[in-house]
Protein backbone atom coordinates (compact mmCIF):
# COMPACT_ATOMS: atom_id res chain seq x y z
CA UNK A 1 0.00 0.00 0.00
CA UNK A 2 3.01 2.25 0.45
CA UNK A 3 3.55 2.30 -3.28
CA UNK A 4 -0.11 3.01 -3.95
CA UNK A 5 0.29 6.18 -1.94
CA UNK A 6 3.19 7.17 -4.15
CA UNK A 7 1.14 6.35 -7.25
CA UNK A 8 -1.55 8.80 -6.25
CA UNK A 9 0.85 11.66 -5.60
CA UNK A 10 0.87 14.00 -8.57
CA UNK A 11 4.28 14.30 -10.19
CA UNK A 12 4.91 17.87 -11.32
CA UNK A 13 7.56 16.87 -13.87
CA UNK A 14 5.37 14.25 -15.50
CA UNK A 15 2.44 16.67 -15.58
CA UNK A 16 4.66 19.30 -17.16
CA UNK A 17 5.88 16.93 -19.86
CA UNK A 18 2.39 15.57 -20.49
CA UNK A 19 1.00 19.04 -21.09
CA UNK A 20 4.00 20.09 -23.18
CA UNK A 21 3.86 16.96 -25.36
CA UNK A 22 0.11 17.20 -25.72
CA UNK A 23 0.18 20.86 -26.70
CA UNK A 24 3.05 20.40 -29.18
CA UNK A 25 1.24 17.42 -30.67
CA UNK A 26 -1.95 19.48 -30.83
CA UNK A 27 -0.15 22.34 -32.56
CA UNK A 28 1.55 20.10 -35.13
CA UNK A 29 -1.40 17.85 -35.82
CA UNK A 30 -3.77 20.79 -36.02
CA UNK A 31 -1.58 22.41 -38.62
CA UNK A 32 -0.58 19.37 -40.64
CA UNK A 33 -3.38 16.88 -40.12
CA UNK A 34 -6.63 17.91 -38.44
CA UNK A 35 -7.15 21.13 -40.39
CA UNK A 36 -6.35 19.69 -43.85
CA UNK A 37 -8.24 16.47 -43.15
CA UNK A 38 -11.39 18.14 -41.84
CA UNK A 39 -11.30 20.69 -44.64
CA UNK A 40 -10.90 17.96 -47.24
CA UNK A 41 -13.73 15.97 -45.67
CA UNK A 42 -15.93 19.02 -45.77
CA UNK A 43 -15.07 19.85 -49.36
CA UNK A 44 -15.64 16.27 -50.37
CA UNK A 45 -19.01 16.18 -48.68
CA UNK A 46 -19.93 19.42 -50.36
CA UNK A 47 -18.82 18.13 -53.76
CA UNK A 48 -20.84 14.95 -53.26
CA UNK A 49 -23.87 17.01 -52.26
CA UNK A 50 -23.34 19.23 -55.26
CA UNK A 51 -22.97 16.23 -57.56
CA UNK A 52 -26.16 14.68 -56.20
CA UNK A 53 -28.05 17.93 -56.61
CA UNK A 54 -26.75 18.26 -60.14
CA UNK A 55 -27.72 14.68 -60.92
CA UNK A 56 -31.26 15.39 -59.75
CA UNK A 57 -31.29 18.59 -61.76
CA UNK A 58 -29.92 16.83 -64.84
CA UNK A 59 -32.55 14.17 -64.45
CA UNK A 60 -35.26 16.78 -64.27
CA UNK A 61 -33.83 18.44 -67.32
CA UNK A 62 -33.78 15.16 -69.17
CA UNK A 63 -37.37 14.55 -68.15
CA UNK A 64 -38.49 17.94 -69.42
CA UNK A 65 -36.49 17.47 -72.60
CA UNK A 66 -38.07 14.09 -73.13
CA UNK A 67 -41.52 15.51 -72.60
CA UNK A 68 -40.70 18.30 -75.02
CA UNK A 69 -39.41 15.76 -77.50
CA UNK A 70 -42.59 13.77 -77.29
CA UNK A 71 -44.57 16.92 -77.76
CA UNK A 72 -42.48 17.87 -80.76
CA UNK A 73 -42.83 14.43 -82.26
CA UNK A 74 -46.58 14.48 -81.78
CA UNK A 75 -46.74 17.95 -83.26
CA UNK A 76 -44.58 16.86 -86.19
CA UNK A 77 -46.78 13.90 -86.81
CA UNK A 78 -49.83 16.09 -86.76
CA UNK A 79 -48.24 18.55 -89.09
CA UNK A 80 -47.15 15.80 -91.39
CA UNK A 81 -50.66 14.43 -91.47
CA UNK A 82 -52.12 17.81 -92.26
CA UNK A 83 -49.47 18.46 -94.88
CA UNK A 84 -50.11 15.15 -96.51
CA UNK A 85 -53.84 15.72 -96.36
CA UNK A 86 -53.51 19.16 -97.78
CA UNK A 87 -51.18 17.96 -100.48
CA UNK A 88 -53.59 15.26 -101.38
CA UNK A 89 -56.42 17.71 -101.53
CA UNK A 90 -54.31 20.04 -103.54
CA UNK A 91 -53.26 17.36 -105.95
CA UNK A 92 -56.83 16.17 -106.29
CA UNK A 93 -57.85 19.73 -106.97
CA UNK A 94 -55.07 20.17 -109.48
CA UNK A 95 -55.90 16.94 -111.19
CA UNK A 96 -59.55 17.81 -111.27
CA UNK A 97 -58.74 21.28 -112.50
CA UNK A 98 -56.48 19.85 -115.13
CA UNK A 99 -59.13 17.41 -116.15
CA UNK A 100 -61.67 20.15 -116.29
CA UNK A 101 -59.31 22.39 -118.22
CA UNK A 102 -58.47 19.62 -120.61
CA UNK A 103 -62.07 18.84 -121.08
CA UNK A 104 -62.88 22.48 -121.67
CA UNK A 105 -59.92 22.93 -123.96
CA UNK A 106 -60.87 19.84 -125.88
CA UNK A 107 -64.40 21.02 -126.14
CA UNK A 108 -63.25 24.42 -127.22
CA UNK A 109 -60.94 22.91 -129.80
CA UNK A 110 -63.66 20.69 -131.06
CA UNK A 111 -66.06 23.61 -131.14
CA UNK A 112 -63.51 25.71 -132.92
CA UNK A 113 -62.86 22.96 -135.36
CA UNK A 114 -66.55 22.51 -135.91
CA UNK A 115 -66.94 26.21 -136.38
CA UNK A 116 -64.09 26.29 -138.83
CA UNK A 117 -65.39 23.30 -140.66
CA UNK A 118 -68.73 24.95 -140.77
CA UNK A 119 -67.24 28.16 -142.02
CA UNK A 120 -65.07 26.37 -144.53
CA UNK A 121 -68.05 24.51 -145.77
CA UNK A 122 -70.06 27.69 -146.08
CA UNK A 123 -67.11 29.31 -147.84
CA UNK A 124 -66.77 26.30 -150.08
CA UNK A 125 -70.45 26.31 -150.79
CA UNK A 126 -70.26 30.02 -151.51
CA UNK A 127 -67.20 29.50 -153.71
CA UNK A 128 -68.88 26.66 -155.52
CA UNK A 129 -71.99 28.71 -155.89
CA UNK A 130 -70.08 31.63 -157.30
CA UNK A 131 -68.05 29.33 -159.50
CA UNK A 132 -71.16 27.62 -160.69
CA UNK A 133 -72.81 30.92 -161.38
CA UNK A 134 -69.72 32.13 -163.22
CA UNK A 135 -69.69 28.92 -165.15
CA UNK A 136 -73.32 29.19 -165.78
CA UNK A 137 -72.89 32.73 -167.01
CA UNK A 138 -69.95 31.68 -169.11
CA UNK A 139 -71.77 28.72 -170.42
CA UNK A 140 -74.83 30.81 -170.99
CA UNK A 141 -72.76 33.33 -172.87
CA UNK A 142 -71.13 30.53 -174.82
CA UNK A 143 -74.48 28.98 -175.46
CA UNK A 144 -75.84 32.22 -176.59
CA UNK A 145 -72.89 32.65 -178.90
CA UNK A 146 -73.14 29.02 -180.17
CA UNK A 147 -76.87 29.03 -180.58
CA UNK A 148 -76.30 31.47 -183.20
CA UNK A 149 -73.95 29.06 -184.90
CA UNK A 150 -74.48 25.38 -184.05
CA UNK A 151 -77.38 24.10 -182.05
CA UNK A 152 -75.85 20.70 -181.67
CA UNK A 153 -72.54 21.90 -180.66
CA UNK A 154 -74.25 23.99 -178.11
CA UNK A 155 -75.89 21.00 -176.62
CA UNK A 156 -72.62 19.16 -176.47
CA UNK A 157 -70.91 21.96 -174.72
CA UNK A 158 -73.50 22.16 -172.02
CA UNK A 159 -73.25 18.47 -171.40
CA UNK A 160 -69.48 18.55 -171.19
CA UNK A 161 -69.58 21.40 -168.79
CA UNK A 162 -72.00 19.56 -166.56
CA UNK A 163 -69.69 16.55 -166.65
CA UNK A 164 -66.86 18.73 -165.66
CA UNK A 165 -68.81 20.00 -162.74
CA UNK A 166 -69.63 16.51 -161.51
Amino acid at each position, binding site marked *: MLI*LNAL*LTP*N*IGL*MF*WTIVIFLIL*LFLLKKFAWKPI*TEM*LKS*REESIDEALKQAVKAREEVDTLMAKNFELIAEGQKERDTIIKEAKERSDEIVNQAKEDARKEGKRLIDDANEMIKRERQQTVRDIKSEISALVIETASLIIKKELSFKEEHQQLIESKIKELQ
Partner: protein
Amino acid sequence: MYIKIRQILIAFILANPLLLTASGGEKNSKDFNLVNFALHHIADSYSWDFYEKQDGSKVGIQLPRVFINLKEKELNIFASTHHAEEAGYVEEYLYNPEALHGKMLIPGAEFELKELTDNIHLEKDSLKKKELEVQLNALITKSKPLDFSITKNVLFMVFAAILLLWIFISVAKKYKQNPNSAPRGLQSALEPIIVFVRDEIAKTYIPHKYERYLPLLLNFFFFIWILNMMGLIPFSSNVTGNFSVTASLALITFFATNLSAKGSYWKHIFWFPGVPIFVKPIMLVVEFVSVFTKPFALMIRLFANITAGHLVILSFISLIFIFGKMGMSPGAGWATSFISVIFALFIDFIEILIALLQAYIFTTLSALFIGQAVETEH
Protein backbone atom coordinates in the same frame (compact mmCIF):
# COMPACT_ATOMS: atom_id res chain seq x y z
CA MET B 1 -3.35 -2.73 -43.62
CA TYR B 2 -6.31 -3.85 -41.53
CA ILE B 3 -5.08 -7.40 -41.45
CA LYS B 4 -1.59 -6.30 -40.56
CA ILE B 5 -2.83 -4.24 -37.61
CA ARG B 6 -5.00 -7.11 -36.46
CA GLN B 7 -2.17 -9.60 -36.70
CA ILE B 8 0.10 -7.34 -34.71
CA LEU B 9 -2.55 -6.83 -32.06
CA ILE B 10 -3.24 -10.53 -31.78
CA ALA B 11 0.44 -11.21 -31.50
CA PHE B 12 0.67 -8.72 -28.67
CA ILE B 13 -2.34 -10.09 -26.87
CA LEU B 14 -0.99 -13.59 -27.08
CA ALA B 15 2.41 -12.49 -25.97
CA ASN B 16 1.20 -10.23 -23.16
CA PRO B 17 0.32 -12.75 -20.44
CA LEU B 18 3.29 -14.89 -21.28
CA LEU B 19 5.72 -12.00 -21.09
CA LEU B 20 4.22 -10.79 -17.88
CA THR B 21 4.64 -14.31 -16.62
CA ALA B 22 8.27 -14.15 -17.50
CA SER B 23 8.76 -10.85 -15.72
CA GLY B 24 6.87 -12.15 -12.68
CA GLY B 25 8.98 -15.25 -12.51
CA GLU B 26 11.96 -13.46 -11.06
CA LYS B 27 10.11 -12.94 -7.83
CA ASN B 28 9.72 -16.67 -7.37
CA SER B 29 12.85 -17.00 -5.34
CA LYS B 30 11.86 -14.25 -2.92
CA ASP B 31 8.65 -13.87 -0.99
CA PHE B 32 6.14 -13.09 -3.66
CA ASN B 33 4.27 -9.88 -2.88
CA LEU B 34 1.33 -9.50 -5.22
CA VAL B 35 0.61 -5.89 -4.31
CA ASN B 36 4.16 -4.70 -4.77
CA PHE B 37 4.58 -6.70 -7.95
CA ALA B 38 1.41 -5.33 -9.51
CA LEU B 39 1.89 -1.74 -8.38
CA HIS B 40 5.47 -1.70 -9.60
CA HIS B 41 4.24 -2.84 -12.97
CA ILE B 42 1.77 -0.01 -13.35
CA ALA B 43 4.04 2.64 -11.85
CA ASP B 44 6.16 5.09 -13.80
CA SER B 45 9.88 4.47 -13.85
CA TYR B 46 13.16 6.25 -14.46
CA SER B 47 14.45 3.50 -16.74
CA TRP B 48 12.98 1.29 -19.43
CA ASP B 49 13.66 -2.18 -18.08
CA PHE B 50 13.34 -5.35 -20.08
CA TYR B 51 14.13 -7.98 -17.47
CA GLU B 52 15.63 -8.50 -14.05
CA LYS B 53 18.66 -10.69 -13.56
CA GLN B 54 18.93 -13.32 -10.81
CA ASP B 55 20.97 -10.90 -8.67
CA GLY B 56 18.23 -8.26 -8.84
CA SER B 57 19.94 -5.91 -11.29
CA LYS B 58 17.79 -4.82 -14.18
CA VAL B 59 18.58 -4.83 -17.87
CA GLY B 60 17.17 -1.92 -19.77
CA ILE B 61 17.66 1.61 -20.94
CA GLN B 62 18.44 4.30 -18.38
CA LEU B 63 16.50 7.48 -18.99
CA PRO B 64 17.80 11.02 -18.53
CA ARG B 65 17.22 12.86 -15.28
CA VAL B 66 16.39 16.54 -15.21
CA PHE B 67 16.38 18.33 -11.87
CA ILE B 68 15.91 21.90 -10.83
CA ASN B 69 17.85 22.28 -7.61
CA LEU B 70 15.84 24.91 -5.76
CA LYS B 71 18.48 25.37 -3.05
CA GLU B 72 21.32 26.07 -5.47
CA LYS B 73 18.96 27.54 -8.08
CA GLU B 74 20.42 25.52 -10.91
CA LEU B 75 19.29 23.11 -13.60
CA ASN B 76 21.00 19.69 -13.55
CA ILE B 77 20.67 17.28 -16.44
CA PHE B 78 22.10 13.75 -16.22
CA ALA B 79 22.10 10.92 -18.72
CA SER B 80 20.84 8.48 -16.09
CA THR B 81 20.00 8.01 -12.41
CA HIS B 82 23.47 6.55 -11.98
CA HIS B 83 25.07 9.74 -13.26
CA ALA B 84 22.90 11.78 -10.93
CA GLU B 85 24.10 9.67 -8.00
CA GLU B 86 27.68 10.25 -9.03
CA ALA B 87 26.99 13.98 -9.00
CA GLY B 88 25.80 13.71 -5.41
CA TYR B 89 22.07 13.18 -5.72
CA VAL B 90 20.76 10.63 -3.23
CA GLU B 91 17.98 8.06 -3.42
CA GLU B 92 15.03 9.13 -1.30
CA TYR B 93 13.98 5.58 -0.41
CA LEU B 94 17.11 5.18 1.72
CA TYR B 95 15.52 7.58 4.21
CA ASN B 96 11.86 7.27 3.32
CA PRO B 97 10.64 3.70 2.73
CA GLU B 98 7.49 5.02 1.07
CA ALA B 99 9.42 6.58 -1.81
CA LEU B 100 9.62 4.92 -5.19
CA HIS B 101 13.03 3.89 -6.41
CA GLY B 102 14.57 6.66 -8.46
CA LYS B 103 13.12 9.54 -6.50
CA MET B 104 16.18 11.65 -5.72
CA LEU B 105 17.15 14.22 -3.10
CA ILE B 106 19.53 17.11 -3.76
CA PRO B 107 23.26 16.77 -3.07
CA GLY B 108 24.42 17.76 0.39
CA ALA B 109 21.26 16.60 2.16
CA GLU B 110 22.56 13.12 2.94
CA PHE B 111 24.70 14.00 5.99
CA GLU B 112 21.89 15.64 7.87
CA LEU B 113 19.49 12.91 6.81
CA LYS B 114 21.85 10.16 7.90
CA GLU B 115 22.30 11.80 11.27
CA LEU B 116 18.56 12.11 11.76
CA THR B 117 17.81 8.50 10.76
CA ASP B 118 20.61 7.27 13.02
CA ASN B 119 19.10 9.28 15.86
CA ILE B 120 15.67 7.82 15.15
CA HIS B 121 17.10 4.31 15.30
CA LEU B 122 18.90 5.04 18.56
CA GLU B 123 16.04 6.89 20.20
CA LYS B 124 14.06 4.75 22.61
CA ASP B 125 11.42 7.24 23.69
CA SER B 126 8.50 6.86 21.25
CA LEU B 127 7.34 10.46 21.64
CA LYS B 128 10.75 11.87 20.83
CA LYS B 129 11.07 9.36 18.03
CA LYS B 130 7.87 10.68 16.46
CA GLU B 131 9.18 14.20 16.77
CA LEU B 132 12.37 13.23 15.01
CA GLU B 133 10.39 11.49 12.28
CA VAL B 134 8.43 14.65 11.66
CA GLN B 135 11.74 16.49 11.44
CA LEU B 136 13.03 13.92 8.99
CA ASN B 137 9.95 14.24 6.78
CA ALA B 138 10.27 18.02 6.76
CA LEU B 139 13.92 17.72 5.81
CA ILE B 140 13.10 15.28 3.01
CA THR B 141 10.43 17.63 1.64
CA LYS B 142 12.92 20.48 1.78
CA SER B 143 15.61 18.44 0.01
CA LYS B 144 13.44 17.46 -2.93
CA PRO B 145 14.47 18.98 -6.25
CA LEU B 146 11.89 19.77 -8.92
CA ASP B 147 12.02 16.60 -10.94
CA PHE B 148 11.49 17.11 -14.68
CA SER B 149 13.08 13.79 -15.61
CA ILE B 150 12.22 12.06 -18.85
CA THR B 151 10.47 9.06 -17.32
CA LYS B 152 9.27 5.95 -19.08
CA ASN B 153 5.83 7.53 -19.39
CA VAL B 154 7.26 10.66 -20.98
CA LEU B 155 9.25 8.51 -23.38
CA PHE B 156 6.15 6.60 -24.40
CA MET B 157 4.15 9.77 -24.80
CA VAL B 158 6.84 10.96 -27.20
CA PHE B 159 6.62 7.61 -29.03
CA ALA B 160 2.85 8.00 -29.21
CA ALA B 161 3.18 11.56 -30.45
CA ILE B 162 5.64 10.54 -33.17
CA LEU B 163 3.41 7.63 -34.18
CA LEU B 164 0.36 9.91 -34.37
CA LEU B 165 2.26 12.54 -36.35
CA TRP B 166 3.51 9.92 -38.76
CA ILE B 167 0.08 8.30 -39.22
CA PHE B 168 -1.99 11.44 -39.55
CA ILE B 169 0.39 13.53 -41.61
CA SER B 170 0.65 10.68 -44.12
CA VAL B 171 -3.14 10.39 -44.10
CA ALA B 172 -3.49 14.15 -44.58
CA LYS B 173 -1.09 13.89 -47.52
CA LYS B 174 -3.33 11.27 -49.08
CA TYR B 175 -6.28 13.62 -48.76
CA LYS B 176 -4.29 16.30 -50.56
CA GLN B 177 -3.10 13.90 -53.27
CA ASN B 178 -6.58 12.70 -54.22
CA PRO B 179 -8.99 15.41 -53.20
CA ASN B 180 -12.70 14.66 -53.41
CA SER B 181 -12.18 10.97 -54.05
CA ALA B 182 -12.94 7.85 -52.05
CA PRO B 183 -10.51 7.12 -49.18
CA ARG B 184 -8.08 4.25 -49.50
CA GLY B 185 -5.71 2.31 -47.29
CA LEU B 186 -5.08 3.68 -43.82
CA GLN B 187 -7.14 6.69 -44.76
CA SER B 188 -10.29 4.58 -45.05
CA ALA B 189 -9.59 2.98 -41.67
CA LEU B 190 -9.23 6.30 -39.88
CA GLU B 191 -11.76 8.41 -41.74
CA PRO B 192 -14.85 6.84 -40.11
CA ILE B 193 -13.31 7.51 -36.69
CA ILE B 194 -12.52 11.13 -37.54
CA VAL B 195 -16.02 11.58 -38.94
CA PHE B 196 -17.45 9.90 -35.83
CA VAL B 197 -15.59 12.30 -33.53
CA ARG B 198 -16.73 15.21 -35.65
CA ASP B 199 -20.39 14.24 -36.04
CA GLU B 200 -21.19 12.27 -32.89
CA ILE B 201 -19.00 14.11 -30.40
CA ALA B 202 -18.11 17.61 -31.59
CA LYS B 203 -21.29 18.47 -33.51
CA THR B 204 -23.56 16.87 -30.91
CA TYR B 205 -22.22 18.72 -27.88
CA ILE B 206 -20.80 21.91 -29.44
CA PRO B 207 -23.27 22.39 -32.29
CA HIS B 208 -22.30 25.93 -33.28
CA LYS B 209 -18.60 26.22 -32.59
CA TYR B 210 -17.52 22.63 -33.13
CA GLU B 211 -15.01 23.55 -35.79
CA ARG B 212 -12.91 25.48 -33.30
CA TYR B 213 -12.70 22.61 -30.80
CA LEU B 214 -12.59 19.71 -33.25
CA PRO B 215 -8.75 19.59 -33.41
CA LEU B 216 -8.54 19.46 -29.61
CA LEU B 217 -11.14 16.71 -29.40
CA LEU B 218 -9.51 14.69 -32.17
CA ASN B 219 -6.20 15.11 -30.38
CA PHE B 220 -7.70 13.92 -27.08
CA PHE B 221 -9.33 10.94 -28.72
CA PHE B 222 -6.37 9.63 -30.67
CA PHE B 223 -3.74 10.50 -28.05
CA ILE B 224 -5.63 8.69 -25.28
CA TRP B 225 -6.58 5.81 -27.51
CA ILE B 226 -3.07 5.13 -28.74
CA LEU B 227 -1.66 5.46 -25.21
CA ASN B 228 -4.30 3.05 -23.90
CA MET B 229 -3.40 0.57 -26.63
CA MET B 230 0.32 0.99 -26.05
CA GLY B 231 -0.27 0.30 -22.36
CA LEU B 232 -1.47 -3.17 -23.30
CA ILE B 233 1.79 -3.97 -25.05
CA PRO B 234 4.32 -5.82 -22.88
CA PHE B 235 7.47 -3.86 -21.98
CA SER B 236 5.70 -0.63 -22.77
CA SER B 237 4.48 1.96 -20.34
CA ASN B 238 1.13 2.29 -18.61
CA VAL B 239 0.77 5.97 -19.44
CA THR B 240 -2.97 6.60 -19.16
CA GLY B 241 -3.07 4.55 -15.96
CA ASN B 242 -0.96 7.25 -14.37
CA PHE B 243 -2.54 9.78 -12.09
CA SER B 244 -0.37 12.71 -13.20
CA VAL B 245 -0.99 12.08 -16.90
CA THR B 246 -4.77 11.93 -16.60
CA ALA B 247 -4.66 14.94 -14.28
CA SER B 248 -2.77 16.91 -16.94
CA LEU B 249 -5.22 15.93 -19.65
CA ALA B 250 -8.13 16.87 -17.41
CA LEU B 251 -6.39 20.17 -16.70
CA ILE B 252 -6.33 20.90 -20.41
CA THR B 253 -10.09 20.28 -20.56
CA PHE B 254 -10.49 22.49 -17.49
CA PHE B 255 -8.68 25.38 -19.15
CA ALA B 256 -10.34 24.82 -22.52
CA THR B 257 -13.71 24.96 -20.73
CA ASN B 258 -13.20 27.92 -18.46
CA LEU B 259 -11.03 30.14 -20.64
CA SER B 260 -13.53 30.07 -23.49
CA ALA B 261 -16.67 30.20 -21.35
CA LYS B 262 -19.38 32.67 -22.26
CA GLY B 263 -21.34 34.95 -19.92
CA SER B 264 -24.28 32.60 -19.57
CA TYR B 265 -21.93 29.90 -18.24
CA TRP B 266 -20.68 32.18 -15.46
CA LYS B 267 -24.21 33.37 -14.83
CA HIS B 268 -25.28 29.78 -14.26
CA ILE B 269 -22.50 29.36 -11.76
CA PHE B 270 -22.73 32.60 -9.78
CA TRP B 271 -26.38 33.59 -10.15
CA PHE B 272 -28.41 30.57 -11.22
CA PRO B 273 -31.40 31.77 -13.24
CA GLY B 274 -34.95 30.61 -12.66
CA VAL B 275 -34.71 29.75 -8.95
CA PRO B 276 -35.88 31.69 -5.86
CA ILE B 277 -33.33 34.09 -4.47
CA PHE B 278 -32.61 32.10 -1.30
CA VAL B 279 -31.69 29.07 -3.44
CA LYS B 280 -29.17 31.05 -5.47
CA PRO B 281 -26.36 30.98 -2.85
CA ILE B 282 -26.81 27.22 -2.51
CA MET B 283 -26.63 26.83 -6.27
CA LEU B 284 -23.54 29.01 -6.31
CA VAL B 285 -21.73 26.58 -4.02
CA VAL B 286 -22.96 23.55 -5.95
CA GLU B 287 -22.12 25.01 -9.34
CA PHE B 288 -18.76 26.36 -8.26
CA VAL B 289 -17.74 22.97 -6.89
CA SER B 290 -18.91 21.36 -10.13
CA VAL B 291 -16.44 23.49 -12.11
CA PHE B 292 -13.69 21.46 -10.46
CA THR B 293 -15.45 18.13 -10.02
CA LYS B 294 -16.06 17.82 -13.75
CA PRO B 295 -12.38 17.63 -14.77
CA PHE B 296 -11.64 15.76 -11.55
CA ALA B 297 -14.09 13.07 -12.63
CA LEU B 298 -12.39 12.95 -16.03
CA MET B 299 -9.03 12.40 -14.38
CA ILE B 300 -10.25 9.69 -12.01
CA ARG B 301 -12.31 7.87 -14.62
CA LEU B 302 -9.51 7.37 -17.12
CA PHE B 303 -6.89 6.61 -14.47
CA ALA B 304 -9.10 4.16 -12.57
CA ASN B 305 -10.36 2.30 -15.62
CA ILE B 306 -6.96 1.73 -17.14
CA THR B 307 -5.32 0.92 -13.82
CA ALA B 308 -8.09 -1.49 -12.88
CA GLY B 309 -7.72 -3.40 -16.13
CA HIS B 310 -3.98 -3.70 -15.67
CA LEU B 311 -4.38 -4.80 -12.06
CA VAL B 312 -6.87 -7.51 -13.01
CA ILE B 313 -4.52 -8.90 -15.65
CA LEU B 314 -1.57 -8.73 -13.30
CA SER B 315 -3.61 -10.45 -10.60
CA PHE B 316 -4.46 -13.36 -12.87
CA ILE B 317 -0.81 -13.72 -13.73
CA SER B 318 0.19 -13.48 -10.07
CA LEU B 319 -2.22 -16.30 -9.22
CA ILE B 320 0.15 -18.67 -10.97
CA PHE B 321 2.95 -17.85 -8.54
CA ILE B 322 0.73 -17.70 -5.48
CA PHE B 323 -0.60 -21.18 -6.18
CA GLY B 324 2.82 -22.45 -7.16
CA LYS B 325 4.10 -21.31 -3.77
CA MET B 326 1.11 -22.59 -1.75
CA GLY B 327 1.32 -26.10 -3.12
CA MET B 328 5.08 -25.99 -2.66
CA SER B 329 5.26 -27.50 -6.11
CA PRO B 330 5.51 -26.09 -9.57
CA GLY B 331 2.67 -28.41 -10.63
CA ALA B 332 0.01 -26.24 -9.01
CA GLY B 333 1.56 -23.24 -10.73
CA TRP B 334 1.44 -24.95 -14.10
CA ALA B 335 -2.16 -25.99 -13.57
CA THR B 336 -3.14 -22.47 -12.57
CA SER B 337 -1.22 -20.96 -15.44
CA PHE B 338 -3.56 -22.66 -17.89
CA ILE B 339 -6.65 -21.01 -16.36
CA SER B 340 -4.87 -17.74 -15.61
CA VAL B 341 -3.64 -17.29 -19.15
CA ILE B 342 -7.15 -17.86 -20.52
CA PHE B 343 -8.62 -15.38 -18.05
CA ALA B 344 -5.89 -12.82 -18.64
CA LEU B 345 -6.45 -13.20 -22.37
CA PHE B 346 -10.15 -12.60 -21.89
CA ILE B 347 -9.47 -9.46 -19.85
CA ASP B 348 -6.98 -8.34 -22.50
CA PHE B 349 -9.73 -8.48 -25.10
CA ILE B 350 -11.96 -6.44 -22.82
CA GLU B 351 -9.07 -4.00 -22.32
CA ILE B 352 -8.88 -3.41 -26.05
CA LEU B 353 -12.53 -2.41 -25.95
CA ILE B 354 -11.96 -0.29 -22.84
CA ALA B 355 -8.99 1.44 -24.49
CA LEU B 356 -11.32 2.72 -27.18
CA LEU B 357 -14.24 3.29 -24.84
CA GLN B 358 -12.29 5.42 -22.36
CA ALA B 359 -10.83 7.52 -25.15
CA TYR B 360 -14.38 8.04 -26.39
CA ILE B 361 -15.73 8.86 -22.93
CA PHE B 362 -12.94 11.32 -22.16
CA THR B 363 -13.45 13.08 -25.49
CA THR B 364 -17.24 13.08 -25.19
CA LEU B 365 -17.23 14.50 -21.67
CA SER B 366 -14.66 17.12 -22.63
CA ALA B 367 -16.88 18.11 -25.55
CA LEU B 368 -19.90 18.19 -23.23
CA PHE B 369 -18.13 20.47 -20.72
CA ILE B 370 -16.79 22.77 -23.42
CA GLY B 371 -20.21 22.81 -25.07
CA GLN B 372 -21.88 23.84 -21.82
CA ALA B 373 -19.44 26.71 -21.46
CA VAL B 374 -19.41 27.90 -25.04
CA GLU B 375 -22.94 27.42 -26.30
CA THR B 376 -25.11 30.31 -25.17
CA GLU B 377 -28.66 29.12 -25.79
CA HIS B 378 -30.40 26.80 -23.35
